[in-house]
Protein backbone atom coordinates (compact mmCIF):
# COMPACT_ATOMS: atom_id res chain seq x y z
CA UNK A 1 0.00 0.00 0.00
CA UNK A 2 2.68 2.45 0.98
CA UNK A 3 4.64 1.74 -2.18
CA UNK A 4 1.57 2.32 -4.20
CA UNK A 5 0.78 5.61 -2.48
CA UNK A 6 4.40 6.70 -2.81
CA UNK A 7 4.24 6.09 -6.46
CA UNK A 8 1.06 8.12 -6.65
CA UNK A 9 2.73 10.86 -4.71
CA UNK A 10 5.67 10.91 -7.05
CA UNK A 11 3.34 11.06 -9.98
CA UNK A 12 1.60 13.99 -8.36
CA UNK A 13 4.89 15.70 -7.68
CA UNK A 14 6.12 15.21 -11.20
CA UNK A 15 2.84 16.52 -12.46
CA UNK A 16 3.13 19.52 -10.23
CA UNK A 17 6.68 20.11 -11.32
CA UNK A 18 5.78 19.96 -14.91
CA UNK A 19 3.00 22.40 -14.23
CA UNK A 20 5.44 24.62 -12.49
CA UNK A 21 7.82 24.47 -15.38
CA UNK A 22 5.14 25.04 -17.88
CA UNK A 23 3.21 27.71 -15.98
CA UNK A 24 5.72 28.97 -13.41
CA UNK A 25 7.71 32.12 -13.45
CA UNK A 26 11.00 31.67 -15.25
CA UNK A 27 14.06 32.09 -12.97
CA UNK A 28 16.59 34.79 -13.53
CA UNK A 29 20.38 34.51 -13.17
CA UNK A 30 20.29 36.96 -10.26
CA UNK A 31 17.75 34.92 -8.43
CA UNK A 32 19.87 31.81 -8.74
CA UNK A 33 22.84 33.61 -7.36
CA UNK A 34 20.71 34.98 -4.58
CA UNK A 35 19.49 31.52 -3.67
CA UNK A 36 23.05 30.21 -3.79
CA UNK A 37 24.18 32.99 -1.55
CA UNK A 38 21.36 32.25 0.86
CA UNK A 39 22.32 28.57 0.90
CA UNK A 40 25.96 29.38 1.54
CA UNK A 41 25.08 31.90 4.19
CA UNK A 42 22.97 29.37 5.95
CA UNK A 43 25.66 26.73 5.64
CA UNK A 44 28.12 29.07 7.26
CA UNK A 45 25.57 29.73 9.98
CA UNK A 46 25.24 26.03 10.70
CA UNK A 47 28.81 25.87 11.92
CA UNK A 48 28.15 28.76 14.26
CA UNK A 49 25.05 27.05 15.55
CA UNK A 50 26.99 23.85 16.02
CA UNK A 51 29.60 25.71 18.02
CA UNK A 52 26.98 27.42 20.09
CA UNK A 53 25.38 24.13 21.00
CA UNK A 54 27.82 23.20 23.71
CA UNK A 55 25.41 20.83 25.40
CA UNK A 56 24.81 18.96 22.15
CA UNK A 57 21.06 19.13 22.55
CA UNK A 58 20.34 19.98 18.92
CA UNK A 59 22.58 17.51 17.14
CA UNK A 60 19.66 15.89 15.38
CA UNK A 61 18.19 19.22 14.30
CA UNK A 62 21.55 20.36 12.97
CA UNK A 63 21.94 17.16 11.04
CA UNK A 64 18.53 17.66 9.50
CA UNK A 65 19.39 21.26 8.73
CA UNK A 66 22.52 20.22 6.92
CA UNK A 67 20.51 17.60 5.03
CA UNK A 68 17.96 20.19 4.02
CA UNK A 69 20.63 22.63 2.92
CA UNK A 70 22.14 19.90 0.78
CA UNK A 71 18.68 19.29 -0.59
CA UNK A 72 18.28 22.97 -1.33
CA UNK A 73 21.63 22.98 -3.07
CA UNK A 74 20.61 19.98 -5.08
CA UNK A 75 17.30 21.59 -5.97
CA UNK A 76 19.12 24.76 -6.97
CA UNK A 77 21.30 22.72 -9.24
CA UNK A 78 18.16 21.36 -10.80
CA UNK A 79 16.84 24.92 -11.02
CA UNK A 80 13.93 24.05 -8.78
CA UNK A 81 13.97 27.50 -7.35
CA UNK A 82 10.55 27.48 -5.73
CA UNK A 83 11.38 24.34 -3.93
CA UNK A 84 14.74 25.84 -3.01
CA UNK A 85 12.94 28.82 -1.49
CA UNK A 86 10.61 26.52 0.38
CA UNK A 87 13.47 24.43 1.70
CA UNK A 88 15.45 27.56 2.60
CA UNK A 89 12.43 28.89 4.46
CA UNK A 90 12.27 25.64 6.37
CA UNK A 91 15.99 25.84 7.01
CA UNK A 92 15.62 29.34 8.43
CA UNK A 93 12.87 28.11 10.72
CA UNK A 94 15.02 25.14 11.69
CA UNK A 95 17.95 27.44 12.43
CA UNK A 96 15.70 29.59 14.57
CA UNK A 97 14.53 26.46 16.35
CA UNK A 98 18.13 25.43 16.93
CA UNK A 99 18.95 28.86 18.34
CA UNK A 100 15.97 28.81 20.67
CA UNK A 101 16.66 25.26 21.78
CA UNK A 102 20.31 26.10 22.35
CA UNK A 103 19.31 29.12 24.38
CA UNK A 104 16.84 27.01 26.30
CA UNK A 105 19.52 24.38 26.88
CA UNK A 106 21.91 26.99 28.13
CA UNK A 107 19.28 28.32 30.47
CA UNK A 108 18.52 24.79 31.55
CA UNK A 109 22.19 24.25 32.24
CA UNK A 110 22.18 27.42 34.29
CA UNK A 111 19.14 26.14 36.15
CA UNK A 112 20.89 22.84 36.81
CA UNK A 113 24.00 24.64 37.91
CA UNK A 114 22.03 26.90 40.21
CA UNK A 115 20.06 23.94 41.53
CA UNK A 116 23.33 22.16 42.24
CA UNK A 117 24.66 25.28 43.92
CA UNK A 118 21.48 25.54 45.92
CA UNK A 119 21.70 21.87 46.88
CA UNK A 120 25.28 22.41 47.98
CA UNK A 121 24.27 25.46 49.94
CA UNK A 122 21.44 23.61 51.63
CA UNK A 123 23.71 20.69 52.39
CA UNK A 124 26.21 23.13 53.81
CA UNK A 125 23.45 24.78 55.84
CA UNK A 126 22.39 21.38 57.15
CA UNK A 127 25.92 20.40 58.06
CA UNK A 128 26.56 23.80 59.63
CA UNK A 129 23.31 23.60 61.56
CA UNK A 130 24.27 20.12 62.71
CA UNK A 131 27.66 21.40 63.78
CA UNK A 132 25.94 24.26 65.59
CA UNK A 133 23.67 21.84 67.43
CA UNK A 134 26.63 19.65 68.35
CA UNK A 135 28.53 22.69 69.59
CA UNK A 136 25.56 23.88 71.62
CA UNK A 137 25.16 20.42 73.13
CA UNK A 138 28.84 20.36 74.07
CA UNK A 139 28.60 23.84 75.53
CA UNK A 140 25.53 22.93 77.60
CA UNK A 141 27.29 19.78 78.77
CA UNK A 142 30.23 21.92 79.90
CA UNK A 143 27.95 24.42 81.59
CA UNK A 144 26.13 21.78 83.67
CA UNK A 145 27.25 21.81 87.20
CA UNK A 146 29.37 18.84 88.08
CA UNK A 147 28.11 17.02 91.12
Amino acid sequence: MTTRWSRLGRITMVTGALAGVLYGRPATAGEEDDLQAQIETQRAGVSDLDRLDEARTTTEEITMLRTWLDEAWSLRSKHEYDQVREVLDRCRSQAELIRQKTSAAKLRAQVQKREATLRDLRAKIDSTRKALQDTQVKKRALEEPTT
Partner: protein
Amino acid sequence: MINQRINLRLLVAGLCLGACATPPKPRELEMYEGLRKNAGVADAAKKSPDLVANADRLASKAGEEWQSNDLEESRRDALMASIKLKTALAISEQDQMKARIQLLSNQQADAEEELATVTKDLASAKEALDLRQKLGAAQKSAAADRERLSQEMSSEQQKAQAEKQKLSLQLATEQKLAAAQLALRTADTVEANRYAAAPYSAAADMLKKAEAEIKAGDLNGAQVSAEVARQHAERAAELAKPAYEQAEQTTQNRARDEALQRDATAIPGVAVRIERIGDSQRLVISVQDLFNKKETSLGAGHEPLLDSLAVLINKYPTYPIHVLGRTESRGKPGELLAMSQARAQSVSTALAARGVDPRRMTVSADPAPSGDSKAMAAARSRSNRVEIVFLYH
Protein backbone atom coordinates in the same frame (compact mmCIF):
# COMPACT_ATOMS: atom_id res chain seq x y z
CA MET B 1 -14.54 -20.53 -12.80
CA ILE B 2 -17.23 -18.84 -10.78
CA ASN B 3 -14.82 -18.39 -7.91
CA GLN B 4 -12.27 -16.83 -10.21
CA ARG B 5 -14.84 -14.34 -11.39
CA ILE B 6 -15.79 -13.50 -7.80
CA ASN B 7 -12.17 -12.99 -6.86
CA LEU B 8 -11.58 -10.79 -9.86
CA ARG B 9 -14.61 -8.68 -9.00
CA LEU B 10 -13.48 -8.35 -5.40
CA LEU B 11 -10.02 -7.34 -6.57
CA VAL B 12 -11.36 -4.68 -8.87
CA ALA B 13 -13.68 -3.41 -6.17
CA GLY B 14 -10.79 -3.33 -3.75
CA LEU B 15 -8.65 -1.43 -6.18
CA CYS B 16 -11.40 1.07 -6.78
CA LEU B 17 -11.97 1.41 -3.07
CA GLY B 18 -8.21 1.68 -2.48
CA ALA B 19 -7.86 4.39 -5.07
CA CYS B 20 -10.63 6.42 -3.54
CA ALA B 21 -9.52 5.78 0.20
CA THR B 22 -7.41 8.22 2.42
CA PRO B 23 -3.70 7.38 2.35
CA PRO B 24 -1.85 6.74 5.68
CA LYS B 25 -1.13 9.81 7.75
CA PRO B 26 2.40 11.14 7.16
CA ARG B 27 4.84 10.49 9.96
CA GLU B 28 5.59 14.23 10.25
CA LEU B 29 1.92 14.94 10.82
CA GLU B 30 1.68 12.24 13.46
CA MET B 31 4.77 13.67 15.07
CA TYR B 32 3.21 17.12 15.12
CA GLU B 33 0.02 15.79 16.62
CA GLY B 34 2.04 14.06 19.29
CA LEU B 35 3.93 17.26 19.88
CA ARG B 36 0.69 19.20 20.09
CA LYS B 37 -0.34 17.09 23.06
CA ASN B 38 2.65 18.43 24.99
CA ALA B 39 1.53 20.08 28.23
CA GLY B 40 3.73 23.07 27.55
CA VAL B 41 1.88 24.04 24.39
CA ALA B 42 -0.62 26.18 26.29
CA ASP B 43 2.19 28.27 27.82
CA ALA B 44 3.91 28.41 24.46
CA ALA B 45 0.70 29.69 22.88
CA LYS B 46 0.55 32.47 25.47
CA LYS B 47 4.17 33.39 24.98
CA SER B 48 4.33 33.02 21.18
CA PRO B 49 0.78 33.07 19.88
CA ASP B 50 1.83 33.81 16.30
CA LEU B 51 4.18 30.85 16.15
CA VAL B 52 1.67 28.45 17.58
CA ALA B 53 -1.05 29.81 15.36
CA ASN B 54 1.17 29.42 12.31
CA ALA B 55 2.03 25.91 13.38
CA ASP B 56 -1.62 25.04 13.82
CA ARG B 57 -2.46 26.59 10.48
CA LEU B 58 0.30 24.63 8.76
CA ALA B 59 -0.78 21.46 10.51
CA SER B 60 -4.34 22.01 9.45
CA LYS B 61 -3.16 22.56 5.93
CA ALA B 62 -1.03 19.43 6.15
CA GLY B 63 -4.08 17.52 7.32
CA GLU B 64 -6.09 18.77 4.43
CA GLU B 65 -3.27 17.91 2.05
CA TRP B 66 -3.09 14.49 3.57
CA GLN B 67 -6.83 14.09 3.10
CA SER B 68 -6.32 15.18 -0.48
CA ASN B 69 -3.59 12.61 -0.90
CA ASP B 70 -1.10 15.40 -1.38
CA LEU B 71 1.28 13.63 0.91
CA GLU B 72 4.49 15.43 0.06
CA GLU B 73 2.95 18.82 0.66
CA SER B 74 1.34 17.46 3.80
CA ARG B 75 4.65 16.14 5.02
CA ARG B 76 6.47 19.44 4.35
CA ASP B 77 3.78 21.52 6.00
CA ALA B 78 3.59 19.17 8.97
CA LEU B 79 7.35 19.35 9.25
CA MET B 80 7.24 23.13 9.16
CA ALA B 81 4.43 23.14 11.71
CA SER B 82 6.50 20.95 13.99
CA ILE B 83 9.49 23.25 13.63
CA LYS B 84 7.41 26.29 14.54
CA LEU B 85 5.71 24.54 17.44
CA LYS B 86 9.06 23.28 18.72
CA THR B 87 10.42 26.81 18.42
CA ALA B 88 7.48 28.14 20.40
CA LEU B 89 8.02 25.42 23.00
CA ALA B 90 11.73 26.29 23.18
CA ILE B 91 10.94 29.97 23.68
CA SER B 92 8.39 29.05 26.34
CA GLU B 93 10.93 26.78 27.99
CA GLN B 94 13.38 29.67 28.04
CA ASP B 95 10.84 31.77 29.91
CA GLN B 96 10.27 28.94 32.32
CA MET B 97 14.01 28.53 32.76
CA LYS B 98 14.43 32.25 33.30
CA ALA B 99 11.68 32.22 35.88
CA ARG B 100 13.25 29.17 37.42
CA ILE B 101 16.63 30.88 37.43
CA GLN B 102 15.09 33.91 39.10
CA LEU B 103 13.46 31.69 41.68
CA LEU B 104 16.67 29.79 42.20
CA SER B 105 18.56 33.07 42.49
CA ASN B 106 16.19 34.20 45.19
CA GLN B 107 16.42 30.86 46.94
CA GLN B 108 20.19 30.95 46.60
CA ALA B 109 20.29 34.42 48.09
CA ASP B 110 18.05 33.27 50.92
CA ALA B 111 20.16 30.17 51.40
CA GLU B 112 23.36 32.20 51.36
CA GLU B 113 21.88 34.54 53.92
CA GLU B 114 20.75 31.61 56.01
CA LEU B 115 24.15 30.00 55.64
CA ALA B 116 25.81 33.24 56.69
CA THR B 117 23.53 33.43 59.72
CA VAL B 118 24.08 29.81 60.67
CA THR B 119 27.82 30.14 60.04
CA LYS B 120 27.90 33.22 62.23
CA ASP B 121 25.91 31.41 64.90
CA LEU B 122 28.27 28.47 64.60
CA ALA B 123 31.26 30.76 64.91
CA SER B 124 29.72 32.38 67.97
CA ALA B 125 28.86 29.00 69.45
CA LYS B 126 32.36 27.71 68.75
CA GLU B 127 33.85 30.80 70.28
CA ALA B 128 31.58 30.40 73.28
CA LEU B 129 32.47 26.72 73.46
CA ASP B 130 36.14 27.54 73.15
CA LEU B 131 35.83 30.13 75.89
CA ARG B 132 33.87 27.67 78.01
CA GLN B 133 36.53 25.03 77.45
CA LYS B 134 39.23 27.54 78.33
CA LEU B 135 37.23 28.53 81.38
CA GLY B 136 36.88 24.89 82.33
CA ALA B 137 40.59 24.36 81.88
CA ALA B 138 41.32 27.50 83.88
CA GLN B 139 38.96 26.36 86.60
CA LYS B 140 40.61 22.96 86.70
CA SER B 141 44.01 24.59 86.84
CA ALA B 142 42.83 26.97 89.56
CA ALA B 143 41.35 24.08 91.52
CA ALA B 144 44.61 22.18 91.19
CA ASP B 145 46.54 25.25 92.26
CA ARG B 146 44.14 25.78 95.13
CA GLU B 147 44.52 22.17 96.18
CA ARG B 148 48.28 22.38 95.91
CA LEU B 149 48.37 25.66 97.82
CA SER B 150 46.01 24.23 100.40
CA GLN B 151 48.28 21.25 100.85
CA GLU B 152 51.33 23.49 101.00
CA MET B 153 49.55 25.81 103.42
CA SER B 154 48.46 22.87 105.52
CA SER B 155 52.01 21.60 105.55
CA GLU B 156 53.30 25.05 106.44
CA GLN B 157 50.64 25.39 109.10
CA GLN B 158 51.59 22.03 110.52
CA LYS B 159 55.23 23.07 110.51
CA ALA B 160 54.34 26.39 112.10
CA GLN B 161 52.15 24.62 114.63
CA ALA B 162 54.92 22.20 115.45
CA GLU B 163 57.38 25.07 115.67
CA LYS B 164 54.95 26.98 117.85
CA GLN B 165 54.47 23.98 120.10
CA LYS B 166 58.20 23.49 120.25
CA LEU B 167 58.72 27.15 121.08
CA SER B 168 55.95 27.01 123.67
CA LEU B 169 57.49 23.94 125.21
CA GLN B 170 60.90 25.55 125.12
CA LEU B 171 59.51 28.73 126.65
CA ALA B 172 57.67 26.79 129.37
CA THR B 173 60.82 24.79 130.03
CA GLU B 174 62.92 27.93 130.27
CA GLN B 175 60.33 29.51 132.56
CA LYS B 176 60.34 26.45 134.79
CA LEU B 177 64.12 26.42 134.73
CA ALA B 178 64.22 30.13 135.61
CA ALA B 179 61.70 29.52 138.40
CA ALA B 180 63.86 26.72 139.74
CA GLN B 181 66.98 28.91 139.52
CA LEU B 182 65.15 31.74 141.24
CA ALA B 183 63.95 29.39 143.95
CA LEU B 184 67.48 28.12 144.39
CA ARG B 185 68.84 31.67 144.64
CA THR B 186 66.11 32.47 147.13
CA ALA B 187 67.25 29.42 149.07
CA ASP B 188 70.79 30.77 148.83
CA THR B 189 69.70 33.98 150.51
CA VAL B 190 68.74 32.02 153.60
CA GLU B 191 71.83 29.82 153.29
CA ALA B 192 69.75 26.75 152.65
CA ASN B 193 72.88 24.88 151.63
CA ARG B 194 73.84 25.24 155.26
CA TYR B 195 70.57 24.99 157.11
CA ALA B 196 68.70 22.58 154.71
CA ALA B 197 71.50 20.81 152.96
CA ALA B 198 69.55 17.76 151.79
CA PRO B 199 66.74 19.45 149.89
CA TYR B 200 69.10 22.14 148.65
CA SER B 201 71.47 19.54 147.26
CA ALA B 202 68.56 17.71 145.65
CA ALA B 203 67.36 20.95 144.09
CA ALA B 204 70.81 21.74 142.74
CA ASP B 205 71.14 18.24 141.31
CA MET B 206 67.76 18.39 139.66
CA LEU B 207 68.57 21.81 138.21
CA LYS B 208 71.76 20.45 136.67
CA LYS B 209 69.80 17.53 135.31
CA ALA B 210 67.23 19.90 133.78
CA GLU B 211 69.98 21.92 132.11
CA ALA B 212 71.51 18.73 130.74
CA GLU B 213 68.12 17.61 129.42
CA ILE B 214 67.60 20.96 127.69
CA LYS B 215 70.95 20.55 125.95
CA ALA B 216 69.90 17.04 124.93
CA GLY B 217 66.58 18.38 123.60
CA ASP B 218 64.44 16.54 126.12
CA LEU B 219 62.30 19.53 126.99
CA ASN B 220 59.52 17.58 128.68
CA GLY B 221 62.02 15.83 130.93
CA ALA B 222 63.72 19.15 131.57
CA GLN B 223 60.39 20.68 132.63
CA VAL B 224 59.77 17.88 135.11
CA SER B 225 63.31 18.12 136.48
CA ALA B 226 63.10 21.92 136.77
CA GLU B 227 59.76 21.66 138.52
CA VAL B 228 61.17 19.15 141.02
CA ALA B 229 64.22 21.35 141.47
CA ARG B 230 62.00 24.35 142.19
CA GLN B 231 59.98 22.38 144.73
CA HIS B 232 63.15 21.14 146.46
CA ALA B 233 64.60 24.64 146.47
CA GLU B 234 61.43 26.16 147.92
CA ARG B 235 61.34 23.41 150.50
CA ALA B 236 64.98 24.04 151.35
CA ALA B 237 64.33 27.77 151.65
CA GLU B 238 61.34 27.12 153.83
CA LEU B 239 63.32 24.82 156.06
CA ALA B 240 66.38 27.06 156.21
CA LYS B 241 64.61 30.33 156.78
CA PRO B 242 63.95 30.05 160.60
CA ALA B 243 67.46 28.84 161.37
CA TYR B 244 68.92 31.45 159.06
CA GLU B 245 66.90 34.22 160.65
CA GLN B 246 67.82 33.07 164.09
CA ALA B 247 71.46 32.92 163.19
CA GLU B 248 71.23 36.28 161.56
CA GLN B 249 69.57 37.74 164.61
CA THR B 250 72.21 36.25 166.83
CA THR B 251 74.91 37.69 164.69
CA GLN B 252 73.26 41.06 164.69
CA ASN B 253 72.80 40.97 168.47
CA ARG B 254 76.40 39.97 168.98
CA ALA B 255 77.57 42.74 166.76
CA ARG B 256 75.38 45.23 168.58
CA ASP B 257 76.58 43.93 171.91
CA GLU B 258 80.15 44.28 170.77
CA ALA B 259 79.46 47.78 169.49
CA LEU B 260 77.82 48.64 172.77
CA GLN B 261 80.82 47.33 174.64
CA ARG B 262 83.18 49.31 172.45
CA ASP B 263 81.18 52.48 172.87
CA ALA B 264 80.84 51.95 176.61
CA THR B 265 84.53 51.30 177.02
CA ALA B 266 85.26 54.54 175.17
CA ILE B 267 83.47 56.60 177.85
CA PRO B 268 86.12 57.94 180.23
CA GLY B 269 85.79 57.43 184.03
CA VAL B 270 83.73 54.26 183.90
CA ALA B 271 84.50 50.57 184.26
CA VAL B 272 82.86 48.16 181.88
CA ARG B 273 82.43 44.48 182.39
CA ILE B 274 80.44 41.62 180.92
CA GLU B 275 78.57 39.40 183.28
CA ARG B 276 77.21 36.02 182.32
CA ILE B 277 74.37 34.52 184.24
CA GLY B 278 73.45 31.22 182.68
CA ASP B 279 72.68 31.68 179.00
CA SER B 280 72.07 35.40 179.35
CA GLN B 281 74.64 38.13 179.47
CA ARG B 282 74.66 41.73 180.48
CA LEU B 283 76.96 44.69 180.20
CA VAL B 284 77.64 46.56 183.35
CA ILE B 285 78.95 50.14 183.40
CA SER B 286 80.20 50.94 186.81
CA VAL B 287 80.45 54.65 187.74
CA GLN B 288 82.14 55.57 191.03
CA ASP B 289 82.33 58.74 192.97
CA LEU B 290 79.20 60.33 191.66
CA PHE B 291 78.13 61.12 195.20
CA ASN B 292 79.86 62.52 198.24
CA LYS B 293 79.77 60.55 201.51
CA LYS B 294 76.30 60.03 202.83
CA GLU B 295 74.90 62.16 199.96
CA THR B 296 72.16 61.00 197.56
CA SER B 297 72.34 64.00 195.25
CA LEU B 298 74.71 64.04 192.35
CA GLY B 299 77.85 65.96 192.86
CA ALA B 300 78.99 68.80 190.63
CA GLY B 301 81.20 68.14 187.61
CA HIS B 302 79.61 64.87 186.47
CA GLU B 303 77.41 66.31 183.72
CA PRO B 304 79.69 65.26 180.81
CA LEU B 305 79.73 61.73 182.10
CA LEU B 306 75.99 61.65 182.52
CA ASP B 307 75.61 63.15 179.02
CA SER B 308 77.84 60.42 177.57
CA LEU B 309 75.84 57.75 179.39
CA ALA B 310 72.56 59.20 178.13
CA VAL B 311 73.88 59.32 174.54
CA LEU B 312 75.02 55.71 174.84
CA ILE B 313 71.69 54.56 176.23
CA ASN B 314 69.77 56.39 173.50
CA LYS B 315 72.09 54.99 170.80
CA TYR B 316 71.11 51.46 171.71
CA PRO B 317 67.43 51.87 172.42
CA THR B 318 66.53 48.17 172.43
CA TYR B 319 68.35 47.31 175.63
CA PRO B 320 66.46 47.47 178.88
CA ILE B 321 68.41 49.56 181.39
CA HIS B 322 68.74 48.75 185.02
CA VAL B 323 70.18 51.38 187.37
CA LEU B 324 71.62 49.72 190.40
CA GLY B 325 72.80 51.65 193.44
CA ARG B 326 75.55 50.33 195.68
CA THR B 327 77.03 51.74 198.90
CA GLU B 328 79.78 50.87 201.35
CA SER B 329 78.89 48.50 204.16
CA ARG B 330 79.69 50.61 207.17
CA GLY B 331 76.47 51.73 208.65
CA LYS B 332 73.05 50.48 209.24
CA PRO B 333 71.89 48.15 206.45
CA GLY B 334 68.47 49.71 206.21
CA GLU B 335 69.94 53.17 205.82
CA LEU B 336 72.56 51.97 203.39
CA LEU B 337 69.95 50.25 201.20
CA ALA B 338 67.78 53.38 201.23
CA MET B 339 70.74 55.50 200.31
CA SER B 340 71.66 53.13 197.46
CA GLN B 341 68.09 53.27 196.22
CA ALA B 342 68.06 57.03 196.40
CA ARG B 343 71.36 57.34 194.55
CA ALA B 344 70.17 54.94 191.76
CA GLN B 345 67.00 57.01 191.48
CA SER B 346 69.04 60.19 191.22
CA VAL B 347 71.06 58.76 188.34
CA SER B 348 67.88 57.49 186.64
CA THR B 349 66.33 60.91 187.00
CA ALA B 350 69.43 62.57 185.58
CA LEU B 351 69.42 60.23 182.63
CA ALA B 352 65.72 60.80 182.06
CA ALA B 353 66.45 64.49 182.13
CA ARG B 354 68.88 63.81 179.24
CA GLY B 355 66.33 62.13 177.02
CA VAL B 356 66.39 58.57 178.15
CA ASP B 357 62.92 57.04 178.20
CA PRO B 358 62.11 56.40 181.90
CA ARG B 359 60.05 53.36 180.90
CA ARG B 360 63.25 51.62 179.75
CA MET B 361 64.84 52.05 183.13
CA THR B 362 64.36 50.15 186.33
CA VAL B 363 65.96 51.28 189.59
CA SER B 364 67.12 49.07 192.49
CA ALA B 365 69.63 49.00 195.33
CA ASP B 366 72.07 46.31 196.15
CA PRO B 367 72.90 45.58 199.83
CA ALA B 368 76.53 46.24 200.75
CA PRO B 369 78.85 43.29 201.37
CA SER B 370 79.71 42.54 205.06
CA GLY B 371 83.08 41.47 206.77
CA ASP B 372 86.13 42.98 208.43
CA SER B 373 88.99 41.79 206.38
CA LYS B 374 91.14 44.02 204.15
CA ALA B 375 89.73 42.41 201.03
CA MET B 376 86.29 43.30 202.20
CA ALA B 377 87.47 46.83 202.94
CA ALA B 378 88.62 47.21 199.30
CA ALA B 379 85.39 45.72 198.14
CA ARG B 380 83.46 48.20 200.31
CA SER B 381 85.46 51.00 198.74
CA ARG B 382 84.50 49.84 195.25
CA SER B 383 80.93 49.27 196.35
CA ASN B 384 80.26 52.95 196.75
CA ARG B 385 79.01 53.31 193.18
CA VAL B 386 76.12 53.18 190.67
CA GLU B 387 75.95 50.60 187.92
CA ILE B 388 74.19 51.06 184.62
CA VAL B 389 73.30 47.59 183.44
CA PHE B 390 72.43 46.87 179.75
CA LEU B 391 70.46 43.70 179.79
CA TYR B 392 71.18 41.62 176.71
CA HIS B 393 68.42 40.09 174.67
